């Protein structure tokens, strides 16, 4: 395989479409032999980013979200595009994880998970659209079908 394979999906921004969004990404990665661990982490990053858009980007029930997933022999990249309110997830302060149960706010972990699981994350607001791109590289030694021992 040379270059990359790209798949695109646009759906209404509702929780009912979350499964179609994450399923498109995990399906493509599976077809291209990415390890289970990478698929799990991409699944989670896409879920978190799309759930944020579905919950906060638009007036509930309005708007669409577009997913563009590109796989190459060495990486998988997902770009998530919406036309909602401008929101830069990378500008969000990292959560304070030091406190006890009582001090821990409920929420604010989605972006933190994305940043920790992905190798690169970029954001831009252009032409009235939020564009969040997340890449996970295929690490040396990661083989197709490799078990996911940590």
């Amino acid at each position, binding site marked *: 395989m040379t270059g990359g394979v790209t798949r695109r999906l646009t759906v209404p921004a509702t929780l009912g479409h979350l499964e179609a969004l994450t399923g498109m990404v995990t399906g493509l990665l599976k077809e291209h032999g990415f390890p289970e661990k990478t698929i*799990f982490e991409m699944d989670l990053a896409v879920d978190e980013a799309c759930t944020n858009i579905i919950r906060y980007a638009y007036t509930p029930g309005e708007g669409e979200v577009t997913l563009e997933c590109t796989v190459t022999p060495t990486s998988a990249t997902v770009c998530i595009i919406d036309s909602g309110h401008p929101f830069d997830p990378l500008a969000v302060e990292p959560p304070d994880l030091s406190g006890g149960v*009582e001090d821990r706010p409920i929420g604010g972990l989605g972006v933190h998970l994305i940043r920790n699981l992905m190798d690169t994350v970029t954001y831009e607001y252009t032409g009235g659209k939020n564009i969040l791109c997340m890449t996970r590289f295929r690490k040396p030694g990661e083989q197709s079908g490799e078990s996911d021992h*940590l």
Partner: protein
Amino acid sequence: MSTILQVAEERRGDVPVVFLKGRMDATTSPDAEAHINRLIDGGDRQLVVDLSGLEYISSAGLRVLLSGLKRLKASGGMLKLTALAPEIQKVFDIAGFNRLFPIYRNLDEALGADAAR
């Protein structure tokens, strides 16, 4: 991959054990939340949540477990977790939840251990 969450409950002595199986995301987590809240509302203070069948958890699932723990701790109770798969454990580690919850390797250990850690 499962795209649903199955919630089951079994009493071991006085302690309710909630088994979560499948996928815990923004769509499915409300089912688990309703179940846990029902137990707390009914007076249970010691809960064990068995995650051996859990294949996936997002921050929406983490939120449900944390709010359950907050409610229980506020009234002198505890929520214990058991049998996290490696991928699930990694999500807990990143979120810092490994320091908030008592986590046991299996159900017997969770049921045998003292409530307070």
